[in-house]
Each structure stands twice: as C-alpha cells, then as structure tokens.
C-alpha cells in the first residue's frame, strides 16, 4: 500500500518534471527578448537598464544554471516572478484561476446535467427525439466554440439584453460563458452517456430489473445511469483538456480574465516564469484529476476494489 503510494508520487513527479523540462526547452527555443517585455512597453531602453533587468531575473546565467534554478525553486512551489506582472507567478495564476474555476466548474456541472437529462430521455427510445438530439449534438460539435459564443452573445446580450456582456462581475455575466463552454461538452457527454446507457440497458441485468416490475424510469435512474457514468469517466482526461482549451477561447470571446487569457498573453510575451507555472499547473491538475477519477472509479464500480480480506 505504502509502496504503491510512493510509486504514484514518483509518477506524478516524473510527469511534472517532464512537462517542466519540455516547456523550458520550448521556451528557450522561442525567439524573443524578455527584456523588452520586462521594460513594460517603454520605447527607450538603455544598456544599464537592460543589464539591471537581465541580472534581476537571472537571465545572465548560463542556461543549465537557469534550468537547475528553476527546477529547484519549482520543487518548493516557487515559480518566480512574472515578467509582465512583476508579481509572484503563483499569485498571478491563483487570481486568474478563481475566475476560470467558476467558469469551468459551472460549465461542467451544466454540461453534466444537460447530458444526463438528454441521455436518460433519449437512450434507446423515442426515435424521432433521439434523432433530433443526436443531430443537435453533431451540430454543436461541428461549430467552433468561439463562434458559438459570439452568436449567443449577439443574440442574448446585444439583441435581447437578457444578459450583460461585461467581464467578470455578477452571476449574470457568467451565464453566457458557461453555456458557451458547456454546450460542446454536453454534446460529447450526451453521446457517451447515451451509448453507455444503451449498452447497460441491453445487459442481462436490465432484463432482470424489468422482470421485477421496475418502470423505465427506475431502471434508467437506479441502474443504468451508474453504468453510463463508468463509460463516461474514461473520457475525463479528454474532457478536462476540452474544458481548458475551451476556456481559452471562451474567455477571449467574453473578455473574462482567467487562466486562458493569462496563458495566451504569457506565451505571446515570452513571460517564461508564467508559462512554466501554467504548464506545471495544468499538468498537476491533470494528474490530480486522473487520481480522483481512479478513486471515483473504485467508488462507482465495486468490481475494481481489491478484496480486503
């Protein structure tokens, strides 16, 4: 038990180290002069100033030393100062993360709710409704996320004035971004859940449940849904990546400050420490989510639990 724990930890560290190294190499390959970002858009930079900045951010050291420095600090959770924001990377990321988490969690919850309802309603019955919904899912998956956002925005905010367009304040400003981000997710999830549910409903146990006199609703809710969830949880990684990618686009469309926005800016302006911090964060998030999913698996599916006795 302890041994597997240590192994897990080692794997996580290895993934994080790899992600950091890969990004470090990539960022050093990118042409660009961090000093021009550090100087904050000024049009005049003298040599003394350049030297001062270069020294302050350790850019005058040899690459391998910068790398070791970086890893050493990253290990104790210090990712250094952002070039653009002149603030600890951690602080920059966390203030943005709050915004993104609200959006991402909201979108996931909504997507899940929509998908569950859709799957429960249309799995293996009501052929015309089912065809309609599968068609709708296909359309949603074939439309770029950002385009969806723009359409929703011009329809519900500009034309009908139902929701504000403004950046980050109030629950109202969250409605459209959450819907935008959740619709494609809901479409994927619906497909998976429906497939899972249809698969579960064709299993012998579903026949058993029916022979007990259970109604369709009971069968789907009490029995089928858990099996469908199992099918869906294999795609958590993809979903997570979708949420992160989607939030970059959604945040751009709706002008929300969040990880997506910060990421774009950080990459564009060669904000090395920030990019590295974001990559580490997303890798860590990914690893953690995978662990959580594994645990959730055990919770849902007793067959995977080890016999304790």
């Amino acid at each position, binding site marked *: 038990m302890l041994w597997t724990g240590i192994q897990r930890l080692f794997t996580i560290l290895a993934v994080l180290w790899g992600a950091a190294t890969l990004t470090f190499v990539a960022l050093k390959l990118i042409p660009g002069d961090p000093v021009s970002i550090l100087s904050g858009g000024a049009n005049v930079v003298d040599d003394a100033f350049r030297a001062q900045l270069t020294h302050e951010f350790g850019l005058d050291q040899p690459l391998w030393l910068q790398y070791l420095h970086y890893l050493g600090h990253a290990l104790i959770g210090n990712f250094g100062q952002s070039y653009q924001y002149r603030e600890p990377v951690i602080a920059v990321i966390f203030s943005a993360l709050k915004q993104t988490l609200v959006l991402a969690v909201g979108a996931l919850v909504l997507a899940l709710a929509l998908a569950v309802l859709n799957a429960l309603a249309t799995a293996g019955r009501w052929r015309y409704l089912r065809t309609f919904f599968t068609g709708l899912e296909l359309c949603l998956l074939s439309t770029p996320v*950002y385009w969806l956002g723009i359409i929703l925005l011009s329809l519900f905010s500009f034309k009908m004035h139902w929701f504000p367009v403004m950046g980050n304040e109030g629950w109202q400003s969250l409605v459209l971004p959450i819907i935008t981000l959740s619709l494609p997710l809901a479409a994927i999830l619906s497909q998976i859940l429906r497939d899972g549910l249809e698969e579960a409903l*064709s299993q012998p146990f579903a026949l058993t449940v029916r022979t007990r006199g259970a109604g369709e609703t009971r069968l789907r809710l009490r029995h089928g849904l858990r099996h469908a969830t199992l099918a869906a949880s294999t795609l958590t990684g993809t979903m997570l990546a979708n949420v992160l990618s989607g939030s970059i686009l959604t945040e751009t469309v709706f002008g929300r400050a969040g990880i997506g926005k910060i990421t774009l800016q950080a990459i564009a302006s060669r904000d090395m420490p920030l990019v590295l911090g974001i990559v580490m964060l997303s890798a860590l998030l990914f690893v953690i989510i995978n662990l959580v999913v594994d645990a959730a698996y055990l919770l849902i599916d007793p067959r995977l639990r080890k016999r304790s006795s």
Partner: protein
Amino acid sequence: MSSNPLLVRTHPPVSRRGGNPWLLPKTLIPAAFVLLLIVTVIAPQWFTPLKPDDMDMDAVLSAPTLRHLFGTDSLGRDVFSRVIYGSALSLSIGLGATLIACVGGMALGLLSALAPRALRRVLVRLLDILLAFPELLLALLVIAVLGRGPTNTLIAVGLAGIASYARLLRSQVLQVKLSGYVEHSVALGESPLRIIFRHILPNTLRPLLILATLGIGQSVLTASSLSFLGLGVVPPTAEWGALLADGRDYLDVAPWISLLPATVVALSVIALTLLGRRLQTILAKGA
C-alpha cells in the same frame, strides 16, 4: 453461451435494408459533400471567377448579390471566393495535421506498447507527459516556437494531436496483444514479427483510421481556433478560421461576412464526421 441469448437490445438494431450500405443516402450525402470539398481543394477556380485577394475598395461590405454570392468583406474582397479558396487551405491543414497526428501517434503508440521493456517505460512516461498538456496549449507553444503561417499551423495542430492517437493505439495494441487470436497464432508457430505485421497492425490500424476520419473535422476546428486567437495564417491568406475571426467585428453591420462562412465550416465538419461514422458502422459490420 458465448453468443449470449439474453443480449437482446431493447430496440432491435435496425437491420440494413437489402443492398449496398455504401449506397444509402446517409452515406452518399456526406460523401458527396466531402467530394465537393475535395474538388474545391484541387480546382477552386471552377467555383468562382473571382480571386480571393482582389480588392474592390468601392464595394466594401456589400451584401450578397449574384456577383458576390456571400457579399464582400471590409476590403471589398469576395467572401465566396475566400471561402472556396479558404476551404483548400483549411482542409489541407486539417488533413495534414491529422496525418501528422496519426503517423506520430502510430509510432509512439506502437513503440510504447511493443518496444523492449526499458524503452517502453520511457515512452509511456513521455506519453503521460504529453497527455498532461491540453491540446490547444501544446499547439500554442508550438506556434510560439515555429511562428505563424499555414504550414506551422498544420504542424502545431498535428503535434498537439499525437498524444491522443498514441494513447488510443497503445491501448488497442495491448488489447490485441492479449487477444485469443494472437495467443493462438503463437500456438500455430507464427513468429513475433509476423504476428505484429499480420495481426496486431491490421487490427489496430482500422479503428485508428476511422478515428482519423473523424479527426480531420476536429483538426479543421482546432486550426480555426488558432486563427481566431490571432495565431493562424498570415493575412491576406484566406482560411476559414481567419474568415470567421475577421468577420466578427462586422456581425451587426455585415453579418454575411462571417455567418455564411461559419455555415460552410459547420456543414463541412458535419459531413466529415457523418462520413467517418458511416465508415465506422459499415466496416464494423464487416463487409
């Protein structure tokens, strides 16, 4: 018992009507659309006499007419020609990116499942690391390293897709490796290489290829997302994502600039997806 008599679907699968599954409307219509797209790639000039980059500064933002089917954009360029010429680029990017992702994914997936133990371990870790990057983030980083432009977009989207194909292929290979027929082939006396090339490869590649058909559409969308973020092709090149991105500022004065191209994009991706799914069903049933 092996064919469990209890496995009765609640609604019996719609058995195919007599006749060739390739000739059903649900196969033919998307196939025809995709064919049309392919023709636009080869010979865009068949569809429009106008050049995508020619400006008519006196006919800026004009609404759709017979001459300009989709109207003109902010520089008086014909939107329809831009969509047509754009489809050539966008589809090439989609196809190229999927190709890179597939080939890379194949190499990484096969090696990480079949290579000698030590190498396999390293590759599995590498795969873990790659999977920890969201695709778009990876694509952004690649674009940052390589710079903008159609070829780089293609490479970025392709590289970003490798990991998921590799993971799929790896799990497929592992599954096939443990399958009864591989073990049986050992018992028949087939050599490992023969088993890899005669059984493992053919049986794992087919699902990969089906996925790739679906992947082309998604690659087109990812590439267009890059364009939307301002990291795609270089103006004045016509590309779908760039068209949509450029048009969004004119949504209330000249909605056709982006609405009509957006419809074309969505229809194309739908057609590609439908075709992919049909291939999947037809091939799964076994000819």
